């Protein structure tokens, strides 16, 4: 790993990363990848997020869907743990709450494959500092 020695180094790295993420999210290229984030703070893990993450990875591989499943921190929806955010290329990210294995399967089958929504979506109810 190269050390960051100046502000320019940091900028370069940031732009490189942003480009990479953009590429991943716009899905205009061959990388038509579904991205799933699993909220994995202590509370999420305690309510089963780890098992859900493993299950998602296995199922997606089994169904040969190109996807990246990654962990993230607390999304704040304690009442609906485990929670996951699914971004299908070309569509807005959607957060699903109370995800057990059954619902995880349903999300893959119905939402990811067939663009059908399933009950229990958590609407975004906050503003970020970007907008």
């Amino acid at each position, binding site marked *: 790993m190269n050390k960051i020695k100046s502000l320019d180094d940091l900028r370069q790295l940031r732009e490189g990363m942003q480009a990479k993420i953009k590429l991943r999210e716009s899905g205009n290229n061959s990388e038509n990848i579904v991205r799933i984030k699993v909220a994995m703070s202590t509370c999420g893990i305690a309510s089963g997020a780890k098992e859900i993450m493993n299950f998602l990875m296995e199922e997606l591989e089994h169904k040969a869907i190109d996807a990246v499943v990654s962990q993230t921190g607390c999304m704040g929806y304690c009442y609906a743990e485990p929670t996951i955010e699914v971004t299908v290329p070309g569509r807005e990210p959607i957060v699903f709450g109370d995800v057990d294995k059954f619902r995880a399967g349903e999300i893959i089958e119905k939402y990811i494959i067939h663009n059908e929504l399933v009950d229990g979506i958590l609407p975004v109810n*906050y503003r970020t500092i970007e907008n």
Partner: protein
Amino acid sequence: MADYKMHLLVCGGTGCNASDSEQIRDNLLTEVEKHDLNDEVQVVMTGCFGFCEKGPIVKVLPDNTFYVQVKPEDAATIVEEHLIKGRKVERLLYKDPENNEPISDSKHMEFYKKQVRIALRNCGFINPENIDEYIARDGYAALAKCLGERTPQQVIDEIKLSGQRGRGGGGFPTGLKWEITSKSIADQKYVVCNADEGDPGAFMDRSILEGDPHSVIEAMAICGYCTGSTKGLVYIRAEYPLAIQRLKTAIKQAREYGLLGEEIFGTPFSFDITLRYGAGAFVCGEETALIHSMEGLRGEPTFKPPFPSESGYLGKPTTVNNVETLASIPVIINKGAAFFNSIGTAKSKGTKVFALAGKINNVGLIEVPMGTTLREVIFDIGGGIKGGKKFKAVQTGGPSGGCLTNSFLDTPIDYDNLISAGSMMGSGGMIVMDEDDCMVSIAKFYLEFTLDESCGKCTPCRIGNKRLFEILDKITKGLGTEEDLSRLRSLCKVIKDTSLCGLGQTSPNPILSTLDNFYDEYLAHVKEHKCPAGQCKSLVKYTIDSEKCTGCTLCFRNCPVGAIAGEKRAPHTIDNSICIKCGVCYDKCKFDAISVS
């Protein structure tokens, strides 16, 4: 296979559900079917939109139309007008409170997004174990800006201008704290991150450290640059293993990138961070006790002054900042003080993270601008009280805070308003109580906590709190008298006035605020020996109505302590000297013969 062109999202949050959202969904489904739109339109239930006051809510995708206060009979209109004719149903649109204009696209509805995420900006967005994802979201740009373009004093001025106050509870201005340390002269200074989160029900610091550890590391380095410190310490409780692990990973990655260590960004500034583990003592959240604990001494507070900014860790000037305070620093630098102080109230700027817990539907971690009212937090974001019960009180500020009632629901939340209401901001725990909660028991619960956590150094806190607890215990057992209430009050005052540190000075708050706001409940306990909420077991009495009792023996067979006696097919009786008030008999009786008083 259906290829849906439109989605109707019906809010299935508990609040909307209570006002018939299921019926709305069913009606929409029927209408969609009636018009043969099954293959084009899908109707789904969602979680809470956080706008319960205007519920039930129906949102139409992809055009983001946001209908409020929808009634089941509106389903036909929505389908016929909006879906078929493509005309939005004007009367159901939300109207901008400022100019009464209907707003159709919810993307323009700032108000319904009552939360603004600054400290939590990356939580749930980035992978906390990947520094690159943090950098992609402007991570370490604030540190670079400070080191490359600003003098320490300029940065301090920016923080002062932003009006940020410490999020750990006290609300001391952050910029001022940094300035005092920067002006102290010493061969070594320290930056300490206080991650000893101890309030019952508060978990915002843990969530930030688990979700976005780099923001804290970056802010500590900025603080180091401003104050002239090269060493940072994170005091974190050992009960937070995942936070510790993620913090360690983050520190390692930052070192590999040269963002911690020698000559950061090619400048002469060097800074590194190590961790110190706390054993989970509440008093160690107090900065002097925290410092002693880090020094390997007993976690006991000492008298201030001298303040840690002048003489702290190992006698050197030390800046102690809370996790949430630090997590907001990079935003202040990147977006400017003006951005930060445009949010909030006159004396409290920015946003505050609250851990919403208790008898509330949407238990969760929220971040709202200072000045948001309790009503908005509890009834909109929190989705109201569980089970449709009545709101009774909300406890803020943990064991140092107080209980606020109905009359404070419309008070804008900020440091000063909460204090004048008899509570405090604290670290941001917010525990909601409903009509079934006994306020005397709640006060007793918090007292028990402080009693356990008192370090024992000063007499008022060590002995005074014990006496307070004994009086409360007496009251909840029905042995209290009216004189006890005045004794409680005067003892509270003495403890507040004479304790050494914040723990003792604030420990009587839960009692004082409940005495002020729920005096009737205390009176009922001491005068009538009754607990209005039915929570104090000693004051509850179960009796069997001999008229209704059929002698079925069900209660007799289920009583775990053998307090019930009686012959088959003859009325039974309860011996209250044996009864442990578990309520099993009450639940089991099929003839409604057992009553509670």
